[in-house]
């Protein structure tokens, strides 16, 4: 069936190091969204990507949407302790109206 795979599942980095999480879909996506969930909190929307090859930046966060619109990445430069949490991607399937599939998330731990 349709899947959105997210890797890695867990990532430990030293504070100040960079971090990347990847999202891959088995089918073409019409758009992809990224969410951040702090420990004990609920998911908070970060960004939506729609166009093939799109790149968007939010301060230290860089989001990319692949040319084929099947994969996406979130890159954090110089991580800080406030970046701790789980990052989810959510892809809307192009071949199925209004179907959103979330990845299982990447849990980021920052070592001081």
């Amino acid at each position, binding site marked *: 069936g349709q899947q959105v795979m997210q890797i890695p599942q867990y990532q430990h980095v030293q504070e100040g190091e960079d971090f990347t999480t990847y999202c891959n879909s088995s089918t073409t996506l019409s758009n992809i969204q990224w969410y951040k969930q702090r420990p004990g909190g609920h*998911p908070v929307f970060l960004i*939506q990507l729609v166009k093939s090859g799109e790149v968007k930046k939010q301060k230290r966060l860089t989001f990319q949407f692949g040319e084929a619109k099947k994969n996406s990445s979130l890159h954090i430069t110089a991580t800080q302790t406030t970046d701790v949490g789980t990052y989810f991607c959510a892809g809307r399937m192009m071949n199925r109206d209004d179907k*959103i599939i*979330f990845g299982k*998330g990447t849990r980021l731990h920052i070592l001081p």
Partner: protein
Amino acid sequence: GAGVSQSPSNKVTEKGKDVELRCDPISGHTALYWYRQSLGQGLEFLIYFQGNSAPDKSGLPSDRFSAERTGGSVSTLTIQRTQQEDSAVYLCASSLASAKWAQETQYFGPGTRLLVL
């Protein structure tokens, strides 16, 4: 303004009992989603309401699960004859999206933590 609210925040029930979870979306949001999140897992889509259209129920795991959205606003998720594997956080989200490919930021509620003993 007020965000998405959910009630109760926590629910402990015995196996076999029915439970109702409530979601109040942001006023004016036409789209409403239910998800569940098991411990340490990702979000699992359950059901989607958009305006007056027939809901997308494709994510409901069994016929014990049902949801309603009355008057295009408040929604209730009902789980009948609860099982221990139903224990999870149930999240509701709403969106302003009124067109198919419109900007679809989803605003999540705080969730209802369900524990089935």
